[in-house]
């Protein structure tokens, strides 16, 4: 019953957020929100650019790429000299090269895949000055690109699609910073730790246990970590850790935070193209898939754990509790993990590796759909728009007209760009998985044997290729092989979609608008929603069905077998 009410509360909270945050963001990116102008304007002067200097898609994409690359180099440097920097009460040394490369790449691409445990690898300086910064910035980059693509639809015959620096700054100042700060306060009030003092050591006279309690600037990092769909926690246990996610309320808050911007951006999209219905249609497609996935994943986790049952504890009313926290329970944990895998967030509040096979199937395939339901901040919207362009192309053909989306004709160039955006992720993920299962360095990674082990590798590559960051943590990723291969996976998965998205925005912006008529293919009704869902599921299904058949599906069908 409690789970049902949780869903209801989440739907209501998101409904309100969709409307109000969505319209707030539209105002922010239109430049109508100015209460921090005293910070904003001087910064533009410092940069030498401003809202009046619009960019073509090439300059926009170029800015994003150069900026990300420079930040990547800077962050790498800081991680490598960590031992010499202040704010290091744990006295940690430099982060090894391959791990640094993987980590900084991961945070710059909004993935937050972590081949390390925070308590023993990252000083407070690194958590604050490298990782948290990226959690803000990578989110802003994603959102900026999404807005640029939407401008492709809302503008006509325009050679420019906005200014990357301005979009990013506005996002950081007016959207991410205020909400994260408020959320941080709430999280701390519930018990998330936020201090710069080092670990505490306490001796318990009751049982003579001496504990080292890790601490740090965790609560506020958690806030932006989730708001920006990053997902990289300060601790190894991520959001299962009680000092980062102390109560069922904070668990719910994290879920809501993660979903808030991706969901609201559909409203922003609708508002920018002067038809909220258009955004609502995309949201409905997202919600349908998300809802179904939450449904069967929760159901799967409510089933008993086979190993535990075989060991003698057959009656498991609380579902599969291996790897789960008591204060959350089985179904809320499933809801959490599905939310995180479908928003490219990747945080976990329970151990994915210990999920029942259909539970793993749910989290894994959620990512394989391309992170569009609702997807990451910005990246979810620009990726689902790519899917929608394909759906419109085929649908438009079926009614006998040159396909058009919101009045913009979808021609060879648009199909090419959308096609590239569509094919980069599956190819990258599958090829890198194939390499990993073929070479010795890859094969020693998994913890579990048999199909579950294969799934661990597949999951890792899928997660990084979709910039998700969640892991079946049994896989030992902290090796040179997985660090480097993973970094490549993340870079391709991020920029291989981001750049075509910006290019698509530029191509659409330069077109004129064909007025709608009775003969136009409608993009705001049930048929369109069905076609978009169809494209997402069919393309995702067709590309990953064989791989998934060899992983969670075969495991699910293996009754009575243990590996």
């Amino acid at each position, binding site marked *: 019953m409690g789970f049902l009410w949780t869903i209801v509360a989440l739907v209501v909270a998101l409904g309100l957020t969709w409307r109000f945050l969505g319209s707030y963001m539209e105002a922010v990116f239109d430049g109508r929100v100015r209460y921090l102008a005293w910070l904003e304007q001087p910064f533009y002067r410092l940069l030498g650019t401003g809202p009046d200097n619009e960019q073509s898609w090439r300059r926009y994409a170029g800015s994003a790429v150069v900026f990300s690359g420079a930040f990547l180099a800077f962050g790498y440097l800081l991680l490598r000299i960590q031992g010499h920097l202040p704010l290091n009460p744990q006295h940690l040394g430099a982060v090894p090269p391959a791990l640094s490369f993987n980590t900084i790449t991961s945070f710059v691409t909004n993935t937050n895949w972590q081949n390390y445990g925070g308590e023993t690898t990252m000083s407070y300086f690194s958590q604050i000055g490298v990782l948290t910064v990226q959690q803000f910035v990578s989110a802003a980059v994603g959102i900026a690109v999404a807005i640029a693509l939407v401008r492709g639809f809302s503008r006509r015959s325009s050679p420019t699609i906005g200014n990357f620096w301005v979009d990013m700054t506005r996002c950081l100042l007016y959207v991410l910073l205020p909400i994260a700060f408020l959320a941080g306060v709430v999280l701390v009030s519930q018990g998330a730790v936020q201090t710069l003092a080092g670990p505490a050591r306490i001796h318990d006279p009751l049982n003579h246990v001496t504990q080292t309690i890790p601490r740090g600037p965790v609560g506020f990092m958690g806030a932006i970590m989730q708001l920006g769909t990053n997902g990289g926690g300060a601790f190894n246990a991520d959001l299962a850790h009680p000092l980062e996610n102390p109560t069922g309320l904070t668990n719910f808050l994290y879920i809501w935070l993660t979903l808030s911007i991706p969901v609201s951006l559909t409203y922003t999209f609708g508002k920018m193209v002067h038809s909220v219905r258009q955004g609502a249609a995309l949201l409905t497609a997202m919600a349908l898939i998300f809802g179904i996935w939450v449904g069967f994943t929760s159901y799967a986790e409510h089933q008993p754990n086979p190993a535990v049952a075989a060991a003698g504890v057959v009656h498991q009313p609380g579902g599969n509790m291996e790897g789960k926290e008591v204060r959350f329970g089985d179904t809320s944990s499933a809801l959490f993990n599905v939310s995180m895998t479908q928003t490219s967030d990747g945080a976990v509040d329970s151990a994915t590796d210990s999920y029942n096979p259909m539970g793993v199937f749910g989290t894994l395939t959620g990512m394989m759909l391309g992170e569009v339901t609702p997807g990451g901040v910005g990246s979810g919207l620009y990726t689902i728009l790519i899917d929608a362009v394909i759906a419109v192309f085929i649908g438009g053909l*079926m009614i*006998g007209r040159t396909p058009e989306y919101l009045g913009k004709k979808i021609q060879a160039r648009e199909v090419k760009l959308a096609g590239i955006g569509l094919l980069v992720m599956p190819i990258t993920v599958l090829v890198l998985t194939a390499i990993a*299962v073929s070479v010795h360095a890859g094969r020693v990674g998994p913890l579990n044997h048999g199909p579950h082990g294969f799934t661990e590798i597949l999951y890792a590559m899928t997660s990084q290729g979709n910039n998700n960051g969640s892991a079946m943590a049994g896989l030992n990723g902290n090796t040179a092989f997985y660090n480097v291969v993973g970094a490549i996976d993340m870079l391709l998965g991020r920029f291989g979609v981001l750049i075509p998205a910006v290019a698509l925005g530029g191509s659409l912006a330069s077109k004129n608008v064909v007025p709608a008529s*009775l003969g*136009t293919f409608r993009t705001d009704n049930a048929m369109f929603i069905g076609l978009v869902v169809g494209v997402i599921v*069919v393309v995702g299904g067709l590309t990953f069905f*064989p791989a998934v058949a060899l992983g969670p599906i*075969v495991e699910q069908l293996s009754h009575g077998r243990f590996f």
Partner: protein
Amino acid sequence: MARSTARPRPRAQPAPRGVAEARSLFDREILRQALVDAFKKLDPRVQVKNPVMFVVLVGTVVTFAESITHPGKFDWSITVWLFLTVLFANFAEAMAEGRGKAQADTLRRMRSEVEARRLRPDGTEERVAAADLVRGDLVCCEAGDLVPSDGEIVEGVASVDESAITGESAPVIRESGGDRSAVTGGTKVLSDRIVVRITAERGKTFLDRMIHLVEGANRQKTPNEIALTILLSVLTIIFIPVVVVLQPFGRYAGATVSVVILVSLMVCLIPTTIGALLSAIGIAGMDRLVQKNVLAMSGRAVEAAGDVQTLLLDKTGTITLGNRMAAGFLPVGGHTEQEVAGAAQLASLADETPEGRSIVVLAKERFNLRERDLGSGHVFVPFSATTRMSGLDVDHRRIRKGAADSVKRWVAQLGGRVPDELDAIVERVARAGSTPLVVAEEATILGVIELKDVVKQGIRERFDDMRSLGIRTVMITGDNPLTAAAIAEEAGVDDYLAEATPETKLALIKSEQEGGKLVAMTGDGTNDAPALAQADVGVAMNTGTTAAKEAGNMVDLDSNPTKLLEIVEVGKQLLITRGSLTTFSIANDIAKYFAIIPALFVATYPQLGALDVMRLHSPSSAVLSAVIFNALVIVALIPLALRGVRFRPSSSAAILRRNVLIYGVGGIVAPFVFIKLIDLLLVALHAY
């Protein structure tokens, strides 16, 4: 909303037996030639142009190599069927081209090697072969001569038999000056003598262009086709790694993965159905247009026709029956009907238009006025677009008839008075949907001639169809606004342009285009040329001037303005066929996975047998059934590709629903059924 199906749909006029007959799909000759061509097209250089089928060809070579190194019944069967898949694709394209070639041959036969009588600058004649004529040459044709090449009459008038091109056996009048000056190579002069200036480059006559178009060789891909090919390539590129990685995946699980099965899986996954039929669809689309006696200059024009949102239609001949008929004489200012009739008849004696003749006839019938003796010294004043009047000057009597404001202006210029009731009568006539012509003699207005227009039957329903497709119809007419309004109301057009001049027509097209719409129009005169060029789809009448034909991007050999509606339907049908078969092709993949994945891995993971929902006999029969289905479906859909998906004008939502249901849902379900059937057949024949 469901459309009532009880409404009788007006059938399009049966196409006159035109130059390109609709051939039966199973014409023996074409089938035989297509089979031969199918093999010829196996040349890799040809295959490379079609990325999807090229991949299949490569796959065939791979399985062939496997079959040789590890011979086995299964491997050989797969190789054969993969080869057949490529062959069937070639066959589809060859069928489409073959039909086109048949039409081209018919045309070529018409273009017999004629001798032309070329006029030298000094006026003497020389005989040269028609093929040697160049642009600008002057040739002379007399009764019994065949016109050697496309040209423009510069001197004389003749009656011409154009049945070779249009199928119409009734001869037409062609004369120099005016709008009927163009002649086409291959037509026959029946009477009199004309001098023709050749306007076509050698080898580039309309006939040549038609042959070229219809043959489909070196056909340029149209924009939409290019976009679709890109999408198909993207899908192919995605599926190659999907299949290739199954080798290492399988090895990790401890399975040996057969290369042949992997190739089979890949061929089944990539969109071979639409890949095989795409070019055939395009060619067949063009051919359907030729069957309707429309010559399109390019495939782009045909696609643009499907996108058109505004149709500009001439009233006369399209919306109304070509000829207005005189219906009555209405006197003003105390004059009698007979006076009006008499003057009207005089003013119309030289008028060779049907309207003029009907005035003469009506005057004769009503008042027995005939054999008017004009005496000498009479001058006929012909109609001109600028004065909008015509008439007769005789015995110092200047009689004029024409548009009300023109005649009023003329009378005023002569110092005459306009009777009060004239405007009322003119308006009354116009409101009734007729055209009023005012008759005046010298400075006196005598009365009004009422010309009635007759709206074609069934035209209103056709406009409703267009509207449901989202196409706006605009009627163009030289009539005054009141008349135009009445006829527009009766015919059911969305809008009209009255008192249209070439300039206003052009302005209308431009303003529609600025609003982002695509415009189609028909035209025939030289003054239509700018508008035809500006329009996105400009259909020139074959009876029109060469300038018009050059300016437009389509030529209607039947010179039937209603043809525009059919052209739009063909354009849409082309896109719908492409889209539906693409959806079908992709939807098919789902069932194929359920057939092949268990087959690949069931030896290592018997549990995966649960995925074998079709309960196929064995892994080999499952894979073979899928491959056979994949190949046969191409052949099965060739007729659909060539004929086009059935297209009935209705709302886009209804069309979409129908097609998604049939080709989307049907595409998912059909393979499950047929693969199972083929599997059963294979088991029965022990052929796996």
